Structure formats: C-alpha cells, structure tokens
C-alpha cells in the first residue's frame, strides 16, 4: 500500500478532508480514518471481510486480477512448495438476525423526490445496500428512473461530505452542537428551507418548530420547482394544493411543454403506459387500436415525452400559451392573446383538431402544462381541464400537506430585509450555485447547510453539516398519489452523517443525535417517524411492522382539495416570438444530472443524455436552421450528412462538421441574455424549435487546471473528480424572474471548439428498418393501401426482409430453441426446463436510461470517463440507440424512436464460432455465455457481432481510476482506485472484469442461477417432508422449472414503462414473454443475417388523429423502406 501512499500526498490519515476530491486509495487506508473504522466495525462487522486475505483487503471483492496474477505466477514457477497465499475466514462473533452468509436480504424503503417518493426494494449483501428495485407491491407496473437507480452510488461516493465545515474549514461535531445551541433560541428568527418533497414527519415537526420558534419562517426551494404551477393551483384549490394525474383513465393526453414521462412527472405514469399496450399489458388480447391512448405535445426541443407523442408541435416554449389559448377558445373559453406569434394556418388547424379530439374525450382526457412554464399557461391549463371536466375524473386536486411555504424570491427579500438571524438549508438544491442572488443575500445571515456534497453552498455556508443519505436515515414521504411511504435506513451513516429529521429534532430537543450511538439508544428520527405514522395511520406494532415490510401504507392518500374559485383569465400577454436577432434561451432540466445535484454521480454523468447522446457535458441545443443563421454551421445539416467525395456530393454516412470519435468537437458560442454572458458548446438538435436555444442546467460547477478551455482553477473545492471540468454553468444566465426561459438573447460564434463525447454520432437509420414503426391510421403508399391490421402483419417484412431471404446455415440449425428432435432429446445439449428469451416493446420504450443504469448497478460495469467514451469505449452493456426519422423529407419535424440494444443472445451467434479459446459458447438454456476467466481478448467476437453488443476492457477500468487526468495511460505508474467506497456497492455475484477481457449482457445469469438453486432447495424440502424415502420421489422437469415469470432481470425491473419482458419459453403461453413473442409486432433485429436472436423487438405503434395536419406522415419511419 505504501507505493500508493506515495502518489497520494494527502493520505487520508493526516488530512481527513481535502474538499470534494478526496478518495481512498484502499480499504486499508480507509480504515485508518478511525471514524470509518468503527463505522466498519459496527456495520459490516468483520463478517463483510469474509474470505479476504489481508492483502486482498486492498483489492476489491471479486476482482480476479490478483487471481490471474497468482495463477500465472504458479504456472511460471511450478513448484510443489508454492501454495496460494494464506487467506482467512472471519465469521461474525454473534450472528446477526436475518443474515445468512452469501444470501442477499431485501428491505423496503423509498426515495424522497420532489414529484413524489419512489417506493423501493433494496437489496443488501452483508449489510451493504447494493441494488435498488421498484417496489412492485406498491404498483406492479411501476419502474424507477435512472436517478433512482444511480442514487445508491451517491451513498458510496468517495467525495461525499464527511465533515462538519465552518466557513468551508473542517470543524468538529461538538463545535457545531454548541453553535446550534446558540441558534436554537426561541426568540430567534430562523428560516427553514426545505426541498419540494413531501414528508409527513417533517410537516409535523414544522408545526412543533412553529410552536417553539414563534418567528420561524419556512421556505421551500429546489432550482427546478414549478412555482407558477403551485401558485396557479393554490389560487384555484387553496394553499399548498397539488393536482395528481391519473393517466389510466385518460384516452387523450395533451402536454403543453411538459416532459411528464421523465423529467417533469406530475403523477404516476404507469397508467399512461398501460394504455399504450395495444394487446393489453399482458399481451393476452387481440391487437386493438381503440385500446390505445393518444398523446399530443407542443414543445420547443425534443423531450422523451415528445418522442412518444403521436402529434408533436414544434413551437418556442414562450409561445406555447398561444396554442393553449387557441385550444381553450376552441373549447368555449374566450381568452385574448396579446403579443407573441400569430399562429400559422397549420398551427391553428393543429389546435382546432386537438381541441376537437379533447372535446370528444371530455372527462377522459388530461391537459398538462410544463410545471416550470409561465403562470399564464398554468391558468390556461386549468381552464381547459375544467372546461373538459377532467377534475375529479382524470385529475384530482389534493392537499399535499406541505404547509404554506415561501419560495426563493420571498426568502431572498426577507434576507435582504435582514429579517432572518439564521437560515437552515435542508433543500437538496445548491442555492449558492443555482439560485440567483442568494449568495449575496445569505451574507447577511448565519447559514447552516445540510447536504451530501461539499458543494458551493457547503463551502460558503457558515456551517455545513454532512447529511445522511436517504438509505442511511429514518424518515417518511408521500408518493405522487399521496400514499404514505417509509424511508428506512439500510446501513448506519457511513460518515456519521446527520439526517434532516435529526437536525430538526436537535433544534427541538436541543441535542443532536449521534448515529454512532445508535443501537444503545434508538434513533430519535425513528421515534419521530413512528409517532407520525401512529398519528396518520395506526399506532399498533402490527401495522407498524406491516408498514416497514410493505414500505408503504395501503389505504393512505392526500386529503382531497375542493375547488374554491374558477380561473378568471381573460387576457394573456406573451413576449414577442423569438427571431434571428433576439433568440429565446430555455433553461432545460438535464436528463443526466437533473438540476446538478447528481453532478458527483459517475454513472449518471456517463449515461448519455437521452436526446443529444452527450456524456459528461451539457450543450446548447438549437435547430439546424438556427445553427445556420448563427453562422456556426455553413450549411443546414441533414439527418444523413452529405459529404463531398471526388468532388461529388454523396449521402455517404460521412463525418459530420463536428468530427467523430475522439476528434468530435463542437463550436462554442457566446450567449448573451439577461445582461449576462456564457460561452457554451452548441449542437444541432433535430426537431428543435427555431430561434430557441435550450441549455441544460447543472454543469460547470467547478474547474481545475486540466480544463480544456482553461477556465480553472475555479470553485475547485465545490467539485469532485467526477464533476470537475464538466460542461457549462447555465445558471449563470438564469435570474429568479426568468426561471424557465429568457427572451431577447444574442448568440454569436466564439470561434472556438470544445470536445464532446457522444455514444451515438449518427442519428438516422440510413434506410435500414431497424427500429420499426407502424400507424393505427390507414396508410396509403402509391395507391396500395394498408390498414392497421395489414401494417401489423407487415412488421416482419419491413425493410430488406420484404425481399431478401435470410442467410441459411450450412448445418442443420442447432440453436437451443430450434434444435431438431434428436438434439432436443439430448438433455446434455438442450434444457427442457428453461429456455430464456426477452422482448423489448418499442411502443413503450421511451429511451430513458433507467435500464442502462440499472444494468450498470447490477453487473458491476465500470465507468470509463469522457475521453474513453469519445473514443467509443463506453462499457454500458445496453446501448441506447435513438433514431430520428423524417418522413416525407420533412427534416424540420422528425420523429424520434429509441432502441435499446444489448446482447441478443442469438441462437446462432456469430461471436461464438470465432472465439479460438471457447470463451464464449452457448448454454443449454439458450444463453450466449461469456467466461471472462477464459477470455484472452482477441476481440474477434466483437467484430463479428452484428449488433456490436460486446464491450472490451481496454484498460483496467476497475483498478485504475479513469477520472484522474491521463491516469489510464500511465500504466503501472497510474493511481489505483482499488478499495474505494464504490467497490462496496459491487454485486458479489458478478465477476469484476479485468483489463483485456471481453464482456457483455448475459441476461443477469446470476439471477437465473440463484433462481435455479431456489427451486432445488424447494424440491428437497418437498422430497424429505414427504415422509417416505427420498429415493422414490420423482421430480419432473416441470417442477424443476423456476416459477413462472419469477426470474426478473435488472433492466426489466427498472423499466418504468414495462417495455422489457423476460421469461422462459418452456413455460409456453403462460409466460408473458412467449405471448409477446407471438405478437405480430414482434420482429428480429437484422433478421436477414439469420442469427435467431433470443431478444426480439415489438414494433412501435403510432396512434395519429387522421384529421390532424401531417397525420399521414406519422408512424412511417420504416414502413416504406424496402
């Protein structure tokens, strides 16, 4: 370990904190910080160190690097005397309850979120939480998004805040307790700033605080919270009212600039997806277009919701109210629009037809406004919904019970008025960084900040308190529909962090609870939560235990709110429509790191933005036309970029003007708005509204000397290795008056370029029917008509499959499903019990990264860093392709179709036959297995994989920290990242791959294997309980089969739209996967090669409204390809 100490000047021992960028070099070193030592001792009592030799402790679990080393050494010497190094087994002293060595334990908890807590099932190994799954007990169609999946990594983040800071300098807990005592003086004016999530316990404590501190004020702040929406709702339904959507009742959904499927959720969306399945959620009905709902959206830049939409209107966000007003008027309102655009004929028609459709489905429709949109739009939205009589049917007005809270504006004003002696920040936001004007105002008060990261606010605050992660703390929360959900700790705070409730209680009781004392005395938060539960539900132990077990309380919901007064808006004033000269800047929510709070989360940083496919950075997105107007591109870019070859212009899949791979660099532009400036990289966004610039928020939090644009060192302390030098800080342009969009922006080229890493650099299908699509509308192509039924039948023969026969193998097929009888009889080669398969329903897949991140968490997939991604070396087992398609050559309004591609588990897998060492062969149950320890890395398999689903470890991504500048290229000289906290998240049932090994999706084979083992244990009980001798017991294959649909793979579990189905073909029609495979929409990707993939896709169905403008062109992305 010494050598590592050397290249780590600030060893964790003598310099416990060096800002955000501190990482442990090894568990051993980690121990030497004694606080972590006893954290370890208490939490994973040496038991977790089971089966590790002393020197192994440095090495991450299941990393078989050392093993290789050892074995080759042995081979080298070949001496009888040389044994493997002595290793120890250290069992617990007293076996803890529940824990069976080698068996995971599952607990119910939930993640508090602004738009409703997410009920979760948490998997723990030896007391370490390793994986989060949605709580299917709560909603069997629910999934999780990438943020939830990745939040577990935040807990293990090595750069996580661990120390109390006083004005950015390390301080002791005792000092803080003293400081807190001074503040907690009943006469003091204390301001509390909460997050947007709803926590009954917090609300209850708030009342108690009110009682204790008469002058206390309560605020609520998250940088992306929709204040306008709250106010609008409050005006109509009373203070802190909320509107919960019930999509399952909605036949028609109109979204006015709201990405309600992903980043702007306004209620559980599983209902929406249920209504997209045309064969029913269980694929057990006959395809029926009527069963399908219809989605209209009017938005600026593409959102995932926009990609799902049947009709998408491309319009500047500032002008969305104009459309809304038009629709409202069509429905009978009389709203006068002042200023803004004059709607074109098509736009008018769009609105009219949409209105018709809504009217026809009055009460069975939903109209949603982007929660960060203007107050005007919110009002219009309410008007329309009430005109349609949707309230009480598809929409439910409720009382969130947040209590009346002020917003950032009022906070700042009261700060400036000097009305607050102290402000206690409990919000997940980072106001010093993301709230305009807060930093100055806060100087006038004593700032106490509770947070997970050492971010700008933490370093600026008078006091920073290291927070406990939600997986470490007791609390409760409300889900989007108001069910009471429990937040229970899975592990004691790693760094003895303080939970929100602990802090609030400390103010009440005057003493801060020390979690390290937990066990001796029960956590105060626990008591508080339980008290709340008793008040809201039931005081009995029985129901409390049920609550903990289920993770939520069944019959609990928000109190319904009653309509107080109707909206009375007669006129709306719109800013003038954006034009070449004065553009509109939209401060978009980031698909990867939300508002910037996840900036230190490597999984999310590396997960490509679902729309732009940019990793590790944010960019300003503009439409092709605007890009040309701005003069950053000399010509309007096409979806399939043309290139000049031999002087002739050809459609040659050429390299775009920004370059490709490691040369990809986008032009920088200077954006001037609100009298502020920002240099930001610009990128073409197809389907983006003209003269609008969308810039995602949350990046550019700090830079060091390695920054490409030489912006650093700047705010270096606020960031970690993960978040340093990432993108551009668009908060700098945002003011409190323009939280969502700002108009009148000037944009000019800065004649510079900035390298951008993308996972997908070609956005069109180039005439290949890959992600297939059909329409419920009759489709007329040069005379020959095809109605819905015909189109469904036609799915299998779209594109080349319509004329080119598939390649036929010289041999009689012996893929495990299609084997001829003789082979099937050979149990050695063919498994009668299970044959696994998967289907991905493109009709529901929206292309969010939930599955991608879930897979990363489940399968120990390393992060590789920006440079490697740029070179095309990302390791995600699932590559989330998304294609734009412009039917009728209308490149301004393309459709967007996502297509997740992982290993297809081909029955006739090209990769297998070319491996010289038999490292990847077919298993009896139809998996295309990959034996990492046999692989020597010839990479031939990956070449021969038509889907390019294989990933190669070009470096020791697991052992060498790829985020340290150029570290990977230093070879043995590089810093090792072994034993860092994230390694505690590793799934012990999956090998951690070393350098030089090929890896890929294996259908979560570890889950399959444990399922098989379970069956055997069950049968054994049966056999022995039976009484007689086990010899006579007969066990049929059918019994030995894992329970129907009991094996669920990580991506399937995570998928929020249940687009992924996995199961056992041997279960026949009983298995959902078989039914979905039997659907006529089911097709094989690249069927022509004849690989017989086990993973198949179901074509996307668009449900256009025939009378809408451009309806003909919808759902035809691939239908006319031959």
């Amino acid at each position, binding site marked *: 370990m010494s050598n590592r100490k050397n290249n780590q000047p600030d060893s964790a021992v003598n310099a416990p904190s060096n800002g955000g960028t501190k990482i442990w070099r090894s568990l051993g070193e980690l121990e030497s910080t004694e606080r972590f030592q006893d954290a370890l001792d208490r939490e994973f009592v040496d038991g977790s160190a089971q089966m590790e030799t002393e020197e192994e402790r440095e090495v991450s679990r299941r990393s078989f690097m050392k093993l290789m080393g050892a074995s080759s050494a042995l081979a080298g010497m070949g001496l009888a005397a040389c044994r493997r190094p002595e290793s120890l087994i250290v069992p617990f002293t007293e076996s803890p309850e529940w824990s069976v060595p080698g068996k995971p334990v599952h607990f119910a908890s939930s993640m508090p979120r602004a738009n409703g807590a997410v009920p979760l099932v948490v998997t723990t190994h030896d007391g370490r939480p390793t994986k989060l799954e949605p709580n299917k007990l709560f909603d069997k169609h629910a999934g999780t998004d990438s943020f939830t999946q990745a939040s577990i990594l935040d807990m293990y983040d090595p750069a996580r805040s661990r120390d109390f800071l006083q004005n950015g300098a390390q301080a002791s807990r005792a000092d803080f307790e003293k400081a807190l005592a001074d503040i907690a003086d009943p006469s003091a004016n204390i301001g509390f700033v909460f997050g947007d999530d709803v926590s009954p316990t917090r609300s209850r404590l708030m009342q108690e605080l009110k009682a204790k501190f008469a002058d206390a004020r309560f605020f609520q702040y998250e940088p992306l919270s929709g204040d306008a929406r709250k106010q609008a709702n409050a005006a109509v339904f009373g203070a802190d009212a909320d509107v919960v959507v019930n999509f399952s009742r909605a036949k028609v959904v109109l979204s006015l600039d709201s990405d309600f499927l992903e980043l702007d959720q306004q209620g559980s969306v599983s209902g929406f997806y249920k209504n997209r399945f045309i064969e029913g959620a269980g694929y057990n009905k006959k395809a029926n277009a009527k069963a399908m709902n219809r989605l209209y959206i009017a938005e600026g830049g593409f959102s995932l919701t926009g990609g799902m939409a049947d009709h998408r209107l491309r319009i500047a966000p500032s002008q969305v109210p104009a459309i809304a007003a038009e629709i409202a008027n069509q429905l009978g309102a009389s709203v006068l629009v002042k200023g803004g655009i004059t709607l074109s004929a098509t736009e008018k028609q769009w609105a009219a037809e949409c209105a018709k459709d809504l009217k026809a489905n009055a009460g069975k429709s939903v109209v949603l406004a982007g929660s960060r949109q203007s107050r005007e739009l919110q009002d219009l939205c309410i008007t329309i919904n009430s005109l349609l009589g949707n309230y009480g049917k598809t929409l439910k007005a409720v009382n969130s019970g947040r209590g009346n809270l002020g917003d950032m504006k009022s906070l700042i004003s009261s700060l400036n008025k000097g009305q607050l002696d102290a402000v206690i920040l409990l919000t997940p936001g980072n106001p010093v960084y993301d709230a305009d004007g807060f930093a100055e105002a806060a100087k006038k008060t004593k700032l106490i900040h509770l947070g997970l990261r050492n971010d700008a606010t933490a370093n600026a605050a008078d006091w920073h308190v290291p927070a406990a992660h939600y997986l470490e703390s007791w609390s409760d929360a409300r889900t989007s529909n108001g069910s009471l959900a429990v937040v229970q700790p899975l592990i004691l705070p790693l760094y003895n962090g303080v939970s929100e409730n602990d802090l609030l209680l400390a103010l009440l009781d005057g003493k801060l609870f020390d979690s390290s004392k937990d066990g001796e005395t029960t956590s105060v938060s626990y008591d508080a939560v339980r008290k709340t539960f008793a008040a809201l539900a039931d005081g009995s132990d029985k129901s409390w235990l049920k609550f903990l077990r289920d993770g939520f309380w069944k019959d609990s919901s928000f109190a319904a709110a009653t309509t107080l007064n109707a909206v009375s808006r007669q006129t709306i004033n719109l800013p003038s429509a954006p034009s070449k000269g004065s553009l509109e800047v939209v401060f978009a929510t980031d698909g990867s790191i939300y508002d910037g709070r996840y900036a230190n989360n490597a999984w999310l940083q590396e997960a490509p933005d679902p729309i732009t496919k940019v990793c590790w950075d944010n960019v300003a997105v503009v439409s092709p036309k605007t890009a040309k107007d701005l003069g950053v591109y000399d010509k309007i870019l096409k979806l399939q970029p043309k290139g000049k070859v031999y002087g002739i212009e050809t459609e040659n899949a*050429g390299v775009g003007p920004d370059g490709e791979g490691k040369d990809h660099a986008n032009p920088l532009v200077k954006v001037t708005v609100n009298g502020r400036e920002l240099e930001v990289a610009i990128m073409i966004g197809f389907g983006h509204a003209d003269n609008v610039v969308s810039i995602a928020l949350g990046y550019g939090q700090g830079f060091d000397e390695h920054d490409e644009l030489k912006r650093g060192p700047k705010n270096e302390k606020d960031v970690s290795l993960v978040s340093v030098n990432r993108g551009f800080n668009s908060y700098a342009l945002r003011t409190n008056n323009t939280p969502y969009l700002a108009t009148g922006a000037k944009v000019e080229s800065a004649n510079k370029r900035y390298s951008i890493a993308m996972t997908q650099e070609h956005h069109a299908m180039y005439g290949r029917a890959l992600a297939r699509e059909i329409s419920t509308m009759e489709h007329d192509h040069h005379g020959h008509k095809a109605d819905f039924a015909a189109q469904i039948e036609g799915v299998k023969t779209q594109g080349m499959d319509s004329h080119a026969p598939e390649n036929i193998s010289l041999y009689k097929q012996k893929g495990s499903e299609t084997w001829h009888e003789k082979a099937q009889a050979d149990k050695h080669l063919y498994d009668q019990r299970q044959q696994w398969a998967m289907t991905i329903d493109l009709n529901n897949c929206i292309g969010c990264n939930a599955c991608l991140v879930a897979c990363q968490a489940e399968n120990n997939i390393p992060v590789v860093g920006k440079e490697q991604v740029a070179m095309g070396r990302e390791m995600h087992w699932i590559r989330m392709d998304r294609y734009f398609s412009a039917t009728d050559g209308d490149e301004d309004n393309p459709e967007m179709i996502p297509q997740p591609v992982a290993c297809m588990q081909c029955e006739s897998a090209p990769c297998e036959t070319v491996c010289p060492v038999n490292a990847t062969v077919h298993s009896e149950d139809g998996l295309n297995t990959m034996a990492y320890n046999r692989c020597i890395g010839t990479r031939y398999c990956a070449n021969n994989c038509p889907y390019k689903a294989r990933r*190669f470890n070009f470096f020791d991504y697991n052992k060498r920290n790829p985020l340290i500048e150029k570290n990977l290229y230093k070879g043995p000289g590089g810093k090792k990242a072994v034993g860092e906290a994230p390694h505690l998240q590793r799934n012990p049932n999956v090998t951690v791959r070393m350098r030089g090994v090929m890896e890929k999706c294996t259908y979560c084979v570890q889950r399959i294997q444990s399922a098989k083992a379970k069956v055997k244990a069950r049968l054994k009980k049966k056999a022995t309980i039976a009484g007689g001798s086990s010899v006579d017991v007969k066990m049929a294959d059918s019994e030995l089969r894992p329970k129907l649909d009991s094996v669920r793979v990580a991506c399937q579990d995570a998928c929020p739209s249940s687009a992924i189905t996995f199961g056992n073909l041997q279960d026949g029609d009983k298995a959902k996967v078989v039914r979905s495979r039997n659907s006529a929409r089911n097709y094989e990707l690249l069927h*022509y090669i004849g690989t017989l993939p086990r993973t198949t896709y179901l074509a996307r169905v668009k449900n256009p409204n025939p009378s809408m403008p451009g309806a003909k062109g919808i759902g035809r992305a691939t239908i006319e390809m031959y």
Partner: protein
Amino acid sequence: MSDTTIEKDPNKPVIPVMEREKLILNNRSYNWITERVCGILENKQPAIWWMLFIPSVIIAIVGVGGGLFYLVSTGVGVWGNSNRTMWGWPIVNFVFWIGIGHAGTLISAILFLTRQNWRTSINRAAEAMTIFAVVCAGIYPMFHVGRLWMVWFLAPIPNANAIWQNFKSPLLWDVFAVSTYFTISLIFWYLGMVPDLATIRDRAKPGIRKLLYGIFSLGWRGGNRQWSHYEVAYLLLAALSTPLVLSVHSVVSFDFATSVVPGWHTTIFPPYFVAGAVFGGFAMVLTIMIPARYIYGLHDLITMKHIENMAKIILLTGTIVGYAYLMELFVAFYSGAKYEGAAFFYRIAGPYWWAYLAMMSCNVLSPQLFWFRYCRENLWIVMGVCMAVNAGMWFERFVIIVTTLPRMWLPGDWKYYNPSWVDIMTYVGTIGLFLTLFLLFLKFLPCINIAEVKWTLPQSDPHHDDKEDLDDQGAESKASYQHELPDTTY
C-alpha cells in the same frame, strides 16, 4: 542488354533469333561466382550498409521494443481500437506483413517446381524476406490479444481445466497456419543454404567464423551420395511449400471471409488474398533486390531478365487483384443486400474514400505501366511502381478492416477510427526490424544461392564438352570484374 551478351560471348554461334537469354551473363566461372557472392560477406560492408543498418536498429528497438512494452504494461487501450473498431492498425499490419512473406516461398517453391531456373539468383533473398516478414507479422496477433500472459490458452495442451480450444475458429486455424508456415519456410531456407555455408566455411581462416559456419554447414562435403538425397529433399520441401503458401493466406482471409461482417463475408477473399500476397511480395522482393544488386554489383547474377520476369508477374497479379476489387463491387450491387451494398459504397465514397482511392491507384493502375517494355527495363520506374504497390497493399488491408468496422450494421454504433501514436510507432518499428534482419542477412549469409547458380551455368551440364581452360577464364573474369564496377549503369 541481350545483344551485348552476344558480343561478349564469342564462343557461341550468333543466332539472335534462336538465342535464349543467359541467366548468368559474361560466362562467369564457378570461382567467379563464389568470389562474388562470398565477397559480400567476407569483405568489409560498404558505408551505405552502415548508413542503413544503424537507423533501422534504433527504429526497431524504439518502435517495436518500446511500443510493445508500453502496450503490455498499460493495456490494449494505448492503441486506437475501440468498441466499434476492435481490429485496427495491428491486424492491418499483420495481414500486410504476412502477405509480403508469400512471394519468398512462391519464388523458391513454385518457380522451382515449374523449373524456372531464373529463380536461382533471387530465391535466397526472397526466402530470407519471407522469414523476416513473418517475424514482423507474428508480433501483431500475439501482442494484439488483451491478456498476453494468457495466450497459452491457444495451445492445445492438456490442462487441469479440462477445457480445449475451439477448432471451428478461423483464428485458431490462423495460429496453426502461420506457425507452420514460419517453420517450413525456415527449414526450406536453411536446407537450401547448407552447401553455401560449406563454401564459406572452406574459404574461412580457422577461427570463430570457421567455427560457426562449420557448425551450421553440418560438415557438408558435397559428395554425390549427399547431393542425391539433398535434391529429393529440396524437391519435397518445394512441393510442400507450394500448397502451404496458398493455404496460409487463404486461412488468413478466412478471418474475414467466414465472418458475417458486410464487406468481409465474401467467397472471393481466398484467391484474391493469395493473388494480393504474391503481388505485394514480388514488389517487396524487387524493392530490396534492386538496391542490393546495385550496391554489391550483382548485375550478372540478377539480370534484367529476372527483373522483367518479376515485373510481368506483378502486372499479372496486380490485374487479378484489380479484377477482384471490381468483382466485389459488382457482387455487392448484384446481391441486392442493402448492407453489403452500403459497405462497399462507404468504401468508395465513405469517410475513408481516400484510402480506397490510394489502394486503387497504387494496386490497379500503377502496375499497368508494366505493359510497356520500357517501363519494365527502367529501374527507376520499376522501383517507383514497387514502392507504390507496397503502399497500395497496406491500404488494401486498411480498406478491408478499418473502413468496414466503423460502418457496420447499426448506424447507432458508427464511429470514426483513428490510430494512436503507439500504433504508428509500432508499425514503423516493424519496418525497422525487417530492415535490420535483412541487412544482417546480407552481412552474414550468402544472399545468392551459389550452388544452384553454378548449376545453371552451361558448363555444368555433364555432357557439355569443354574446350577452354576454366582457370584462365576465371582469372580473366576476375580482372574483368575489377574494372567493370565503375561503369555500371544501374
């Protein structure tokens, strides 16, 4: 050239029409040949030798040594390869070098079987070239793998894991083919050299030289009871190498042809790879022999006839290769398979169009010059064309591998490929290594097959009744060669 021969050769009736061009000019004697060839490695090397040798050694050590050390210590990532383009430069270079190798075996084996006596002057050098090319080639597949220390998994040796190789994998075929090819070429080369080593041994003064040459000549005595076996053995080896050389490059082409990759999955690959190999190999032989011929004044041994014949072969094979290129395009178009079509379209007009252009002009157009006798006889042109062909053959492999992988089936994974500086360094290094080995060969081994060349002399025919006294002839010829060197025209 030929008419001068006739003048210089008084003791033959001048019948120009019937005259069959001599392989060895100026009626050289046995002794002259011995002197000439052994002279190369007995006298001091000319300055130019050192001027070439020292840089090549440095390049070899830095490029190959340094490059590979960095690679193994740090990871395959130091190359330009990516998850999109798993095989980049390394395999391009492998195929390039292995292709170069083939001409050597071809010249010695096939020309031997077909009794093309003109081979005798060039086969030794060509074979040497083969060995060295294969050495350079061998580096790549070996160091290309992700876990070098596990490469023994490729050898079918019984192990405690009871697991074996996959004999269905073209890569395993490759392992066997290339190693066999190397071994056989080495044997062929060495056996052919034994009598010549004996010659040097017998001329050497007692000392280290005599010791070494003595050991490696195995105590050869040149008795007919040895010669007769030797002849048979040589014939056998030639007969073995001929199918071998064809098979090896076919197997190499299987790496591509048996895959499902559009643009690789074509039945035309084996013949076209073999033709290409011969093509590139002959070009390389010429690129090496012409300077050597000049430096060591071997004009009488390596005559214009040799050069012309090789030029003709280059023309032939070059045209075959050109045909293959066009055929590929036609088949892709005719198959109606969208992906095939696209693959080839992107080759011509895709992001790597420049590579295709280079390949076409170097491999197909430039050899067409050899239709003209003038071009075949002007060594500058010959040299130029050969250089072009060498480059062209490298580009061919580049086109096949690099332009195909980054634009395969799913546009979603398309990404441009750039080599890294390590790629380039290592490649340059192998060139250095090749030159180093070849120069050492020139310095220490007979670069021309002495025994066989003697055998081709007219007086070697046991029934050729001899009039003149050979010794005088030899003496005179020695003199002639002294004053001849200055007025060499090449």
